[in-house]
């Protein structure tokens, strides 16, 4: 029976089917993993309070969020040094996020389930998201204004909410002043310095220009002093209030409200409050700047940088890709040259992306950028303007990298345009370029779109070359802002993919940053899979359309 079954070959077919299933499981599994971990980040987890017996026998209180569980068989646990009783089969351990890094030195700790003596979720527990030192877990005791206690006990929570609202507004105001207004002044002063240097180099620097510049500088100075005074006032206000809270060990800690981002009582929240909070947190994640060496806060600059880079890249890659495809399909005589070009295109697609990075760094940044600096920016020497990695070079490098995608896709689209349409147009007296421009290209435009979408998806996820040509872990300014000339192509930028690498592997506190990395990954995956699905849909739609045309 088995023999004939094997002879029929059907076991092999089944094994092949198993390979497909495995691939599908892996695909879904990976997406599911990212989805689950990434999306869970924003959900307000309950805070538990445990009575925990430490190894030395003392019973202590632990307050924190449950993060992870491991189950180790007894034998293995023994071999790693745990004492196991005879009746214990497994060792269950929990990873707790206990926060309070400023007091205990660590955000996380592993505990053993068997040593937990009691467990509860008191509604009064608060979690404070701080600007420094990570989360705080504990109980609120009082709110202070300066040195005076203004509320304690039950009332403290409500008073705290009011005060915090004010403090956050003040903080926003301060950030606006520091970043926008004073940032603009600094930018202006720097511009002035460069202009002065340029005039000096040209030999046109004289008493008159010196006076003009001094006046301008004085004007900036007046503004600066004004903002400085405002800032001083605001800082005084924002530093006034603070809260007092007790930690798990009963120690009291005073936290100034200026250092607080958010305070919540997750154990008190109902389901709908949590949902509301979920979206609020998601919004913050998408729209705010990162904090604490990128391990907390939002990823807005990374999103912004990625989008800017992708737009710049699209502007460069589309014309070149389309022209190359038009040449291949419409102009070139099929033969040796086209074959050679096809091989070249294929090779461009197959060259490792890091090689593009190396090429971009050497050729674009150092050679082209260096020459541009010498020709147009002699005043800023020795500081490079374009002779250093930046947005422009990153976009051009990635345009080169994604060129094959656009070419292949556009060519496919051109090939699908029925011959009859071209011939019809030519027969009516149109020149070749008119035929192309007015009939063929519009018909192939969805294909170009597909190519562009795929190129964008590729560029958004590419990291290796960007590490060499312009991405940084923390960019102080966005490449687009309110200072003339608004678009700063020479600036370095942040990128989602690099953010994942950097936060996941280079940050000092990987454990704390992990949820954020999963969330960033989820965002990137959603965007890229979405773009690819869109490209597939457009392509399928296009095929249907031409099938109808041909029919």
């Amino acid at each position, binding site marked *: 029976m088995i023999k004939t079954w094997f002879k029929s070959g059907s076991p092999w077919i089944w094994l092949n089917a198993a390979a497909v*299933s495995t691939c599908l499981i*892996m695909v879904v599994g990976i997406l599911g993993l990212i989805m689950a971990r990434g999306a869970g980040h924003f959900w307000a987890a309950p805070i538990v309070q445990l009575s925990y017996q430490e190894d030395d026998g003392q019973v202590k209180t632990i307050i924190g969020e449950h993060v992870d569980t491991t189950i180790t068989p007894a034998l293995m646990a023994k071999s790693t040094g745990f004492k196991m009783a005879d009746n214990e089969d497994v060792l269950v351990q929990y990873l707790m996020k206990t926060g309070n890094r400023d007091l205990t030195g660590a955000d996380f700790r592993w505990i053993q389930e068997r040593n937990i003596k009691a467990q509860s979720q008191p509604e009064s527990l608060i979690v404070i998201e701080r600007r420094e030192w990570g989360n705080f877990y504990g109980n609120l005791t009082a709110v202070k204004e300066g040195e005076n206690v203004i509320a304690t006990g039950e009332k403290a929570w409500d008073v705290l909410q009011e005060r915090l609202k004010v403090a956050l507004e003040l903080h926003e105001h301060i950030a606006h002043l520091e970043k926008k207004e004073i940032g603009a002044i600094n930018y202006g002063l720097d511009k002035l310095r460069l202009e002065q240097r340029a005039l000096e180099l040209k030999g046109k620097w004289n008493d008159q220009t010196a006076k003009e510049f001094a006046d301008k500088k004085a004007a900036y100075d007046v503004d600066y002093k004004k903002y400085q005074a405002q800032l001083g006032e605001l800082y005084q206000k924002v530093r006034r209030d603070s809260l007092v809270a007790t930690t798990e060990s009963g120690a009291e800690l005073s936290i100034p409200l200026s250092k607080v981002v958010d305070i919540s009582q997750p154990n008190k929240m109902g389901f709908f409050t949590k949902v509301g909070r979920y979206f609020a947190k998601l919004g913050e994640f998408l729209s705010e700047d990162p904090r604490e060496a990128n391990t907390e806060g939002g990823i807005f600059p990374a999103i912004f940088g990625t989008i800017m880079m992708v737009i710049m890249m699209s502007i460069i890659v589309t014309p070149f890709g389309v022209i190359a495809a038009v040449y291949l399909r419409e102009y070139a005589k099929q033969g040796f040259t086209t074959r050679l*070009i096809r*091989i070249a295109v294929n090779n461009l697609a197959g060259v490792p992306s890091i090689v593009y990075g190396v090429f971009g760094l050497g050729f674009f940044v150092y050679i082209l950028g260096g020459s541009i600096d010498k020709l147009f920016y002699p005043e800023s020497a020795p500081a490079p303007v374009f002779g250093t990695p930046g947005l422009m070079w990153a976009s051009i490098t990635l345009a080169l990298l994604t060129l094959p995608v656009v070419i292949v896709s556009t060519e496919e689209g051109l090939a699908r345009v029925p011959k009859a349409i071209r011939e019809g147009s030519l027969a009516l007296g149109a*020149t070749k370029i008119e035929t192309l421009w007015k009939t063929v290209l519009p018909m192939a435009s969805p294909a170009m779109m597909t190519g562009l979408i795929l190129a964008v998806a590729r560029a958004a996820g590419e990291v290796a070359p960007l590490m*060499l040509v312009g991405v940084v872990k923390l960019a102080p300014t966005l490449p687009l802002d309110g200072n003339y000339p608004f678009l700063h192509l020479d600036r370095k930028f942040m990128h989602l993919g690099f953010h994942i690498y950097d936060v996941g592997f280079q940050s000092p506190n990987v454990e704390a940053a992990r949820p954020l990395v999963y969330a960033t990954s989820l965002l990137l995956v959603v965007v890229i899979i979405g773009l690819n699905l869109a490209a597939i849909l457009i392509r399928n739609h296009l095929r249907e359309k031409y099938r109808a045309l041909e029919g």
Partner: protein
Amino acid sequence: MSELNNSTSQSSLNTAATSHHEKWRLLKDAIMRRAVTVGGLSIIFAIVVIFFYLLYVVFPIFLSASAESVAQYPVPEQSAGKTLFLNIEEQNEVAARFTDSGQVIFFEAKTGKTLSQKTVLLPPDTKITSVALASPLSEGAVIYGLSNGQAVIVKQQFKVAFKNDKREITASLKYPLGETPLVVDDTGAALEKIAFKVGDGAATIVAKTADKIRLTSIEKEQSMFSDEAIFTRTDSFLDMPAANITDMLVDKEDRNLFLVSDDGSLSFIDISKKSAPEIKQHLNVVEAGQKITSLTFLNGDLSILIGDSSGLVSQWSLVKDQLGKPAFEKIRAFKVSDKPVIEIDSEQRRKGFVTVDSAGQMGIYHSTAERELIKEKISTTAPLTTILSPRANALLFENADGKINLWKVENEHPEVSFKSMWQKVWYESYAKPAYIWQSSSASNDFEPKYSLTPLVFGTLKAAFYAMLVAVPLSLMGAIYTAYFMSPKMRIYAKPAIEIMGALPTVILGFLAGLWLAPFIEEHLAGLFAMLMIMPLGVMAFAFSLQFLPENIRKEIPEGWDAAMLIPVILVTGWFAFTISVPLESAIFGGTLRDWFKNELGIGYDQRNALVVGIAMGFAVVPTIFSIAEDAIFSVPKHLTTGSLALGATPWQTMARVVLLTASPGIFSAIMIGFGRAVGETMIVLMATGNTPVMDLSVFQGLRTLAANIAVEMPESEVDSTHYRVLFLAALVLFVFTFVFNTLAEVVRQRLREKYSSL
């Protein structure tokens, strides 16, 4: 087609305005034709530019050095005595001549014009009987041994200052141990040979008188009560004959002393304990009958260069022998000339050196790369003394005819040779030759190790394990999807797998490094159990389907096997992981990891080739799957129907007809997949420890060419050797993938033609 256009335009339109418009149209058409052609051809241009640019950056490392005479002039201030040695500063502007009458003459290196003259404070009625420079040369410390047993230590330094954007170099003489001469030999015997090292208020002096070798160590202590310094001094004698000693060297750590005697032997003495120097080794370092004619440290003082009368320069380095004891061993030799090598000058910042033989032939060499960079006749007679400038870009020497010569040397990248990149190299203080990549360190003395072999090895290892995972999965998947799967399922399954190719590799790398690596570390046994149990489970499930009642079996739709197997695989996978835990404890008495380590001696890195293999295999699956699936799917239908009609089973048709026909396509799929695995950066960067080790073990880390570039490129100095070697790594990757992709593309084009002819 253009002819058609022309004729229509001429016949139908003849008014002036329209003909003008018509011309414009045609012009536009012609312009666009040119523009598009140029645009299309620029693709080839781009590939060519990338290639040649990489080559252009890499090329200088293969150039040899060049040297040319810049100036020649009579020795300045000839009356001040004969030259003992010369010195030149970093910018090659100011040079110094130290004479046997204790004068130091500073002169312009390009013209010989005297700038200033200084006198070393020597006691009256003494003669200089010996002189020595301390290592490293950049400190400019000089010792004069005198005829009355005294010695004077002088530090000569050049200072660079900028005044009104102009460089000004001033020279100075200082006495680090005070101006009073040191009494080295209290009997007043002349110091015939001398060697020393002077540091911050401390000095070690080795002096040879007619019959003794004396080791004097001086330490300066600042007195607590006055400004006066107190010298504490230790004296000892070496227990060996002094008469035939011809040369002495003390290293910069004043730990080792080397003595050369006229019979060609070298003595290595440990002087780290100043009161009790210990003679470690006596070695014959030249062939019988030959003499040691020159001796110097290679930069870093870890090895010494010995030139002999047969024209051989050998490098001896302190290596640990089998017993772990340090011993001197010859690690390489250069045949420099047929004449005696009278002088060897080491570069001060690299592991290169310049040799001069008695016939005035100069040679530049690099020790690590074992490279002869240039050989040039610089003089017709043996030069009296030579000095290589600190940047190793100028050579200053005095000839017997009383002329000083300045030569310019260009030698940018001596560190790299074919041997140093691809073969085993014996590095300083290593026990034996090895392949090592270690590109940079903070110190000047560092010997860069640019062996690309471990990186290429790592690249191929990672690619190999990735292919081990990817090829079976993707090819089997492609076979099933293209040939056996129901079209309805294919519509969803194919894009689902293909879309994973678009998943950013940074995410795969992140998951591999932070999720998969710890997971595998914990469930290693489970993974192996799964590999064994899963196929069995699938087979068992498929076999058991046979025994289902006929009517139920008929209900099962054809070509949905893969969908049915998903729960089976999940269950067997879960089963494997569950059962692995007790199995592991029972069979291996602990974890599998420990068992590997203790029983087989295979260490386990958390981020290893297995993790990379799985993660990168996953990244490559869509590439191979997609191309192979297309190749199999587009095998002409009449071939398969013919085979089936002749009575072959579907599997026979698949294996004997379809696979055979599609094999070139499958081959090209694997090639492209391999090319992708070789060049992948982020996954290997994140999922391996990036240690450039050469170890085939699946549980060890690795470093690939691509990851190496990503790690080191941002820190490498532009146009340095390191930078160019990284470009070479990129070029290697480029050429590698170029060959693979071109091959794959040619095969694919052939296949397309074949199908269309079928």
